[in-house]
């Protein structure tokens, strides 16, 4: 019996506060699960952006698993803050390299995952994959590998990976989520299947999170069911009015159902406030300047 089954699912569906609550609870679990529970606890803090808690609480004497989690916190903090901490980031990367230099660490799943994540953030997909492929049937590693493949637009590889995973991962929630991620790139019937996966997850009351709502909404958008998508997104917005993904998807769906420009612009402004560095906004800026440059070429003298 997997003691952390519930906790894991809470984490994957983005119920971070609940992960923190449960992770700090005193219910007795086995020794190995205790460490893992701690890892999820700190990772949940990181997901909430509370890097400092993690950085101060994890000591150098803690096991490597926790120390890499701290490393991630340091890294993400340096990334989100201003340019001044560029050196700090370099340091963390260096430290990571040192950790990975130890072969014992290389087969540690937590190390693999955290390394994969840091490299992903840095766009070093090759490095990330190199670490991750060493995993020993760890679903989270698979999830990262798949995201990298998808990011690299290698749907074929992602599909192959998922087929291989299915032989041992059965019906775990994360495995299903991965299937949905790939399905949304595949299209056709897979859209519907992805929707089912998210809907099924959403059925349990604890996992009706912004993240899952977004998943459902995205599936609906791809299926052409815009009004449904919009209502899901508005529900998500009610739960958290500063979730960047919700806002981006709302912009998309508003455009698709022909909402007035003011509405769309309001969401964009909101997005600019909460996540000025969001990929969507970067893309938008890029395209705006691209437009101006290109239009210039055709303009009549």
């Amino acid at each position: 019996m997997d003691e952390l089954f519930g906790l894991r699912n809470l984490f994957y569906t983005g119920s971070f506060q609940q992960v923190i609550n449960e992770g700090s609870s005193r219910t007795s679990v086995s020794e190995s699960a205790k460490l893992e529970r701690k890892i999820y606890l700190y990772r949940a803090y990181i997901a909430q952006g509370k890097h400092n808690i993690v950085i101060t609480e994890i000591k150098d004497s803690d096991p490597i698993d926790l120390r890499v989690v701290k490393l991630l916190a340091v890294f993400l903090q340096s990334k989100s803050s201003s340019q001044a901490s560029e050196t700090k980031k370099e340091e963390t990367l260096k430290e990571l390299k040192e950790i990975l230099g130890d072969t014992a660490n290389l087969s540690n799943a937590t190390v693999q995952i955290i390394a994969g994540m840091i490299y992903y953030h840095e766009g070093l997909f090759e490095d990330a994959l190199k670490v991750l492929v060493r995993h020993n049937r760890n679903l989270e590693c698979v999830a990262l590998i798949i995201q990298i493949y998808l990011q690299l637009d290698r749907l074929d590889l992602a599909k192959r990976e998922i087929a291989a995973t299915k032989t041992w991962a059965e019906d775990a929630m994360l495995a299903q989520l991965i299937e949905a991620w790939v399905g949304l790139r595949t299209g056709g019937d897979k859209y519907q299947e992805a929707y089912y996966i998210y809907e099924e997850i959403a059925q349990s009351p604890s996992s009706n999170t912004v993240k899952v709502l977004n998943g459902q909404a995205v599936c609906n958008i791809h299926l052409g069911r815009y009004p449904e998508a919009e209502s899901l997104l508005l529900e998500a917005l009610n739960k958290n009015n500063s979730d960047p993904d919700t806002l981006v998807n709302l912009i998309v769906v508003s455009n698709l159902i022909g909402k007035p420009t003011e509405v769309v612009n309001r969401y964009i402004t909101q997005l600019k406030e909460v996540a000025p560095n969001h990929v969507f906004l970067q893309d938008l800026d890029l395209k705006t300047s691209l437009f101006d440059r290109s239009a210039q070429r055709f303009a009549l003298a």
Partner: protein
Amino acid sequence: MKTINVWFFLGPVRGIAFHPTQPLFVSGGDDYKIKVWNYKTRKCLFSLNGHLDYVRTVFFHHEYPWILSASDDQTIRIWNWQSRTCIAILTGHNHYVMCAQFHPKEDLVVSASLDQTVRVWDISGLRKKNAAPSSVSFDDSLHKSAATQADIFGSTDAIVKYVLEGHDRGVNWATFHPTLPLIVSAGDDRQIKLWRMNDAKAWEVDTCRGHFNNVSAALFHPRQELIISDAEDKTIRVWDMSKRTLVQTFRREHDRFWVLTAHPELNLFAAGHDNGLIVFKLERERPAYAVHQNSLYYIKDKYLRVFDFASNSDVSVLSVRKIGGQYMQPRSLSYNPAERAVIITTTADGGSFDLFHLPKEFNGEPREASDGKRGPGTSAIFIARNRFAVLDKARQQIEIRDLSNATTKSVKPSATVNEIFNAGSSNLLLLSTPTSVILYDIQQRQVVSEINTPPVKYVVWSSDHSQVALLGKHTITIANKTLEESCLIHETIRIKSGAWDDGGIFVYSTLNHIKYALSQGDNGIIRTLDQPVYLTKVKGKNVHCLDRDGKTRVISIDPMEYRFKLALIKRNYDEVLQIIRSSNLVGQAIIAYLQKKGYPEIALHFVRDDKTRFDLAVECGNIEVALETAKAMDREDCWNTLGVEALRQGNHQIVEMAYQRVKNFDRLSFIYLVTGNLEKLKKMLKIAELRNDHMSRFHNSLFLGDVEERVRLLKEVGQLPLAYLTAQSYGLVEEAEAILTSAGLTADDITDMPTNGQLLKPPTPILKHPDSNWPLLTVQRSFFDSAFITTDSNPLAAPLSFNDTNEGLDDVGGDWGGDDDLGFNGATEKAVDDLRIDGEALEEGSGWDIDADLNVQLNNEISQELSNGTHGEFVPPTSGTNESELWIHNSPLAADHVAAGSFETAMQLLNRQVGAVNFEPLKSHFLKTFQATRTYLSCNVSLPPLVYYIRRNPEEIETRRVLPILPYNFQNIVSSQLQEAYKTTTLGKFQDATIQFRNILHSILLISVSKKSEVDEVNQLIEVCREYIVGLSMEQMRRKYPLDSPENTKKALELAAYFTHCRLQPAHLQLSLRSAMTLNYKAKNCLTASMFARRLLELAPPQQVATQARQIQTLSDKTPRDEITLDYDQYNPFNVCGISNIPIYKGSSSVECPYCHASYLPEHQGKLCTVCDVSQIGANSTGLKV
């Protein structure tokens, strides 16, 4: 097949038959006698004697008072059991007659004999004779019986019609088919023969072989094409009547079967064997069904049907003939609304399920079920949209499968599971074990909770999934989501089905009742049933159900009682009150219920009987009602009870009254004492005196402290010593002396006088208010008391009234009138008309100066379905490329390139296709298109989201054909943007309208259409926009010319004239013509004005406009000339130059905009088109691709 009951039968009885309507049965046996019994009185009524050997079978006629008997004496006899005589003897068989039966409708008898024949007899003669008037005189009946006797020998009443030969041994049984001209017979040759007959002859149809010993009996299934037989080989066999093949065999170990019969109405059979009899049914009668929202999915006669509770429509959707074999009814049905799929389980082949998808539309002919997925399993249910669970009972394994029937997971439950049920959530299942129901988490493979129950056969969830009813054979357990039991209900009669009412009441059916259960355990009968039904839905007063024939039925019930109880339990007193007021809910049951449940105050309102009312009133402390009823009854015990209760409450006035009524003087006195009511006490004293009640007098005087009275009393009753003592102690010396004297004693005679006496004096009442009560105990007044007191006369709820406010459709537009006042007589002066577009009242705009009824219609001309489609251009696939790059590869449309973010190539395409050079106005459209094409999904925690690309052909997975979604679509443009622009035009906001039309032109550049016909429509739309933009710009320009100088007037008039040549909608064209007409008329250009008037009239304008036009025409024709010569030739077709607004007549040289095709004078070549604001005039182009 199941045995319903077994009992034993002893004695030499061979044949039995019940009368179809009366409480009679007839028996025949080895005593040669036929006996008729009344089974209610359990008495033999009489015997019919005549047979000379064993009687084998006896039967009643369905209509006449006849009994048919077959005997070993080789005869068949017909008896009249009313006259108790034998009316016919059928002779002809030359061996034992084993069986003789009437035809169910016709005047025929069939008999089977050991002489190896089956005979059919015609008894119409007998019937005719007996069809005489019922009032028969004694003589007549005498005569008749004589005649009958004569006929016995003449044999005219009953003649052999056919002799059926074919059996090789003796025939044991023969019977008619209930409706068809068929006979089935069974014989010692181990065969069952099927015979057919017509008016002229009868012949053997076929033989069923299979029994391996003498066949005792055979009969036709009353409703199905089956023959059932039983035999001495210890089997009962079922045969297909048309194919004459063996369908089923039921074997008993030790008992040979001798006789067989079918129930006249129910689907039951009985067979007698060596040790008794068994009653059985051949098949399950419960139709497989499932309810989803407003639809019932059920199987009837091997068709899956859908019944709509709301519309009562009932359609056959799918033929499921192939499931489970011909004779096996499907057992259960599970429906998946998302995929419109069903799973049907049968018990055939040890249990199997079939998964089907339903057709999209439920109309037309039912489809043959195809694409079915099948597998073994005893129970299968959908648990999620794309998952179902299957139980394999033998292996005790639950498999979770996806819709392609692939197993995704399998679970081995810890307990023995008989059946699985839905538990409302995708990862939960209910498992029914022999002793409990388990809520099982499939994901975590663990038991969530368990509830002990007798074996559960069905599970019914309430619509909000908060409660579940677990139905066993004789129990109902109601529990919540997590299987916490809220009640357990036992029934002595078998429970059949159930459904939840919306209010949370469980309505269920037993074999013969519809009942209800509240979740705290109260239950009761709603109504009785003639035959079992399976409830499917409870909706208000209607219970929807399926009967055993699989027909949908609606049974109306009175839900008042259970609603009332539910409201009580939920303390929803308003509703209780409403029910009490609005319904005629009465009866001892409800009163007893209320009393038992502690609601005497409510019960009070149901009761008219004074005694009960009194009891209830006392119970709930309602002293007023108690008093009222006590008065009405005026019974001693009531008054006493009332007195006690009133005393408890401290209501001494009522207590007084109660005591007065029952003449309880002692208590009355006491109450007067304690209330300090001396007046009344004195009265009591007098009363006591009158009553001659010395004791009472004494009390009262004691209470009053009236010593004299006491002394007097004591004297009166001869208690002189006491009187003396009293007088002495109170210092009434004289009186004491007098007593002594009268007694003949002196003071000296009195010795040992008590010395320790104290003066006894009743306290003086300080507060005397006998008229007012004491402070009363507070009696808790329930909601109902006050409700009944205060509002008994008020109507419960005043009907909601609505005030219809008439929207002021009439008062439209205040500031009509404008700059172009007409100069002629007032007859045609302005009148404000309704300006309506699509029924909507519009404010009058500043632009149009004329009033008219307008109706804008364009939709029909242009709108057509726009659907996504694919384009024929193929690009070789590249793997690993970004989807947006695929889009660029896959499409020649600028829109798709924009969506992919490749603005550069998009611009190139537009430049090539329509000569586009000015992209600035397209910027927002580009960005919007780009923005709408990708979603962002956070995948792994703490990683940036992944980008997903939205396709407009979501069903496509071939990368060579995927195309992006486009936010602009043609249909929307036509149905909303264009209409909006027309409306703005009508309102006269020309500048806004121009912007809107131009916006349409820009949007069109970023659409895609799928059909060729739509391409033409797009071109039409471009043309419409162009005409309007050109026309509206001219109109705007005209307004800038003040009509002060001839030059300006000329220019204005010309522009107005050109405007009338733009291809506008008829309504707008009329407006432009009116404008041109009035302008010209005012400028005294009568000729031109008249011409415009004529053109206007040709368009059949509204009445008022027409009148105006005619007036202008008439007036203008008087002075047929123009003041100002215009540069305008109405007969020569022309386009107006978009820049200079000069007409370019046909044939003159011009240049065009490559996109909107607006015409320009040649000198404008190379400039930016002013109409669409995008393309370069006269540029080379290949044409827009959409």
